[in-house]
């Protein structure tokens, strides 16, 4: 039994905690979310590079939202999302404990939002090299090529909403796509409606996206839709020096303003 | 129109619009194509898909009786996208109608029996079809009693027909409104439908009860019928669930393995009790 499993076992045996949300080994070497309620199942827990899924999405799930004896095993994406969810009052201080990991693999217990915020400050915020390269590749294209690129990508979207469902920040009980008076976005999945859907999704994540890339990872058709939310996240940083998932204050880029905000396109 | 396309609606002209209660309207619809009218027939209890081009389709029952030929009627409350669009229409507009779908009230089996209709609120329309059907074949049945309740006096639908039934010597009509919903000149009962039913203490012998109303009314009405001695197979109701197709394909309306669109919408209490609690 490794540290994490031992820790989980202790927590469950202590009776102070009743549920551990973490990762287990899934099909074909993939990791997947798991819900451990019994100490004897603690050995299912894993934590390695394969555990890159953002599982903050489960924290406000109807079935466990009000369970105050829960623990979440958090990778750095999940940690940032928790901070952002805290800023938006979707999760509440003291409702859960976080098990995070130090560089050397040591388990860190984080009990309050302040502690989480402090820990998150030590993490790297920004895109990975590979992600940055993908962004650059698209930004370097001509306008026409960019349009052609996205037109091709959007034409493949089947509107399964896996991107929305897997995003911790997409917690609205009724999404704009589900509003039908008026019907903002077409229900059938044609390119035009798909484009509108993905633009809308990105816009609604402006200043809130923690660049975990979970939307792109979730897409069964592997559309690089995470780049859209990365774009709004990078712009929020560049224009407003706002990085989502760093502060538990509700001050995301589009929720506040400064009179001195500077642009160069308004006549 | 000859078509193999089961999704293609009949074109219907709105012949008459009547406002029955706040936000509730009844349309009388006539077939635009005489061939469609000639080929069309339905039985009481069935439903259809009504559509406004550019907006979509919505499911509700046919509220008129099959004994009244030449038109169909539907009653709806302005609630969602389609019913809002429908209620914006006026006489002379064209809408689409697909149907009839679903099963029927077994009125042939009810010959020689007393009938007790119990309806609440906007659930009178599905019942109205069968009430008129039975009244048009009045000699087939013994006593006919109608208990109808709504939130307030204004919410009672088909007010002129209620008056008509009230005046008929061969129908016993009891109307009731929820406490607080009465007006100063209200002469009917005041109280919830199950309470009034309890007070009426209907005789179960040789009687069929047809119940239709909001879930909460249904929930409290069944035990009272049971108390009065109604057997499960003597009690009928009609269910509704969200539907898109109307013929067992779109996958929405099933309650367990029972498809409301194909096996229903009419169910006896006996059938209902065998269905899982998923409606």
């Amino acid at each position, binding site marked *: 039994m490794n540290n994490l499993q031992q820790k989980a076992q202790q927590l469950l045996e202590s009776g102070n905690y009743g549920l551990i949300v973490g990762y287990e080994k899934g099909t074909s070497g993939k990791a997947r979310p798991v819900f451990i309620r019994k100490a004897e199942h603690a050995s299912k827990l894993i934590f390695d590079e394969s555990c890159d899924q953002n599982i903050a999405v489960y924290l406000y799930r109807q079935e466990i939202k009000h369970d105050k004896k829960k623990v979440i095993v958090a990778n750095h994406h999940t940690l940032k999302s928790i901070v952002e969810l805290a800023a938006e009052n979707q999760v509440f201080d003291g409702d859960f404990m976080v098990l995070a990991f130090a560089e050397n693999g040591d388990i860190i217990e984080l009990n309050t939002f302040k502690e989480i915020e402090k820990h998150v400050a030590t993490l790297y915020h920004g895109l990975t090299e590979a992600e940055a390269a993908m962004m650059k590749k698209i930004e370097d294209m001509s306008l026409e090529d960019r349009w052609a690129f996205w037109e091709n990508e959007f034409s493949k979207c089947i509107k399964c909403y896996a991107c929305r*469902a897997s995003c911790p920040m997409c917690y609205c009980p009724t999404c704009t796509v589900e509003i039908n008076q008026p019907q903002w976005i077409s229900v059938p999945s044609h390119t035009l409606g798909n484009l509108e859907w993905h633009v809308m999704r990105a816009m609604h994540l402006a200043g809130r996206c923690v660049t975990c890339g979970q939307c792109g*990872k979730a897409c069964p058709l592997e559309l690089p839709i995470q780049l859209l939310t990365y774009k709004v996240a990078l712009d929020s940083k560049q224009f407003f020096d706002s990085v989502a998932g760093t502060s538990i204050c509700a001050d995301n880029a589009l929720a506040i303003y400064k009179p001195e905000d500077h642009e160069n396109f308004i006549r | 129109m000859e078509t*193999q396309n089961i*999704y293609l609606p009949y074109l219907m002209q709105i012949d008459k619009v009547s406002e029955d209660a706040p936000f509730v309207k009844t349309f009388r619809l006539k077939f635009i194509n005489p061939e469609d009218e000639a080929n069309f027939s339905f039985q009481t209890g069935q439903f259809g898909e009504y559509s406004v081009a550019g907006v979509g389709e919505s499911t509700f029952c046919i509220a008129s009786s099959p004994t009244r030929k030449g038109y169909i009627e539907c009653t709806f409350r302005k609630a969602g996208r389609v019913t809002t669009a429908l209620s914006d229409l006026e006489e002379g507009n064209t809408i689409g109608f697909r149907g009839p779908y679903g099963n029927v009230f077994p009125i042939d089996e009810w010959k020689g029996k007393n009938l007790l209709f119990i309806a609440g609120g906007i659930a009178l329309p599905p019942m109205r079809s069968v009430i008129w059907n039975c009244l048009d074949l009045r000699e087939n049945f013994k006593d006919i009693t109608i208990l109808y309740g709504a939130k307030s006096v204004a919410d009672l639908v088909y007010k002129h027909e209620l008056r008509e039934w009230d005046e008929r010597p061969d129908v016993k009509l009891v109307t009731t409104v929820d406490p607080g919903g009465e007006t100063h000149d209200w002469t009917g009962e005041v109280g919830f439908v199950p309470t009034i039913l309890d007070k009426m203490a209907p005789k179960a012998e040789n009687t069929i009860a047809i119940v239709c109303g909001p879930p909460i009314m249904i929930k409290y009405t069944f035990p009272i019928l049971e108390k009065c001695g109604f057997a499960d197979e003597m009690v009928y109701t009609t269910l509704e669930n969200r539907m898109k197709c109307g013929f067992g394909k779109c*996958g929405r309306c*099933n309650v367990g393995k029972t498809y409301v669109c194909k096996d229903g919408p009419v169910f006896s209490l006996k059938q209902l009790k065998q269905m899982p609690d998923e409606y």
Partner: protein
Amino acid sequence: MERKLLTKDSYRSLITKLIGQNYQVVAPVKKDTMIDFLKISSFDEITEDYIVTVSSAKTVAFPRNEKLFDYEKQNKKLTQQDYDFDSIPQSVLIGVRPCDAFGFHSLSSIFCWDSIDKIYTTRLERTTIIGLSCNKADDYCFCTSAKGSPGSTAGSDILLTKMTDGNYIVEIVTEKGAKLVADFSDLFTADGGADKESLLAKVAANFSVDDVLAKINSKFEDEAFWTEQAMRCIGCGACAYVCPTCACFDIQDESHGGKGHRVRCWDSCGLSLFTLHTSGHNPRENQGQRWRQRLMHKFSYMPDRLNTIGCVGCGRCSRACPVDMNIAEHCMSIIEN
């Protein structure tokens, strides 16, 4: 079953000729990062480097958006333009895995349940399905647990099995298949008697779907069981959209000005608004109930009402699932619990 042989060169000629004769040829194509069924205009676009495609072959008969008819509004008048059945092309669908091919059987049983959906049936009638046996499988495959096999002929009009020399064993399954072979008889040669079985992928049968069928009805009321099963499920529609047998759909109007069309498009029982009434009441209001509907539909309702299983064991839903809801595992847990 009649067997023939098709050399790899003849296979190329066959496809090239079909395209030349204006058949719509749909085949697995590598596009960007994925392999999916697409219309091809040359043989070289085809790939055979897949276990299964991402989306299922159902799109040929049940596309994700299907225009049902057109309408035009002018003042109070409404006119409708019926579906143009002549517009459905003669198609040849190639590279279909046996699981996918069998999926059409389940799909047809839904679309032909009393009311015949002529749009679907015409599309399928005008499609000749050339299956391709599986020579490899992965951890997600479980066809052998769901009454299928990597070399099953059921559902295909012709089944090809690739031999080690690159040529194909041809099994002629239906009259439609026989007609296609007859139309191009010069390309097919006599069967060499190769052992098909040895060429097929090995898929272990970890459970029997009959056990799921026998057990699942008794689990309906066990709410805790379904809640636990669906804890991980995040409620997207990926599983249903890639499934070869999922037929649930939505009907929507699309219009520009006074003109438009009614469209049938895919929908999923996993989405929370699927059964929501206008009143706000939702018969399946939590994910456990929705997940139960998905499994019950496949393993109880369809067997009971339509005499067919709603799962062919292709494993697509599990591959597409962002949270690895592996349907085979869930089936096994139904049997075990």
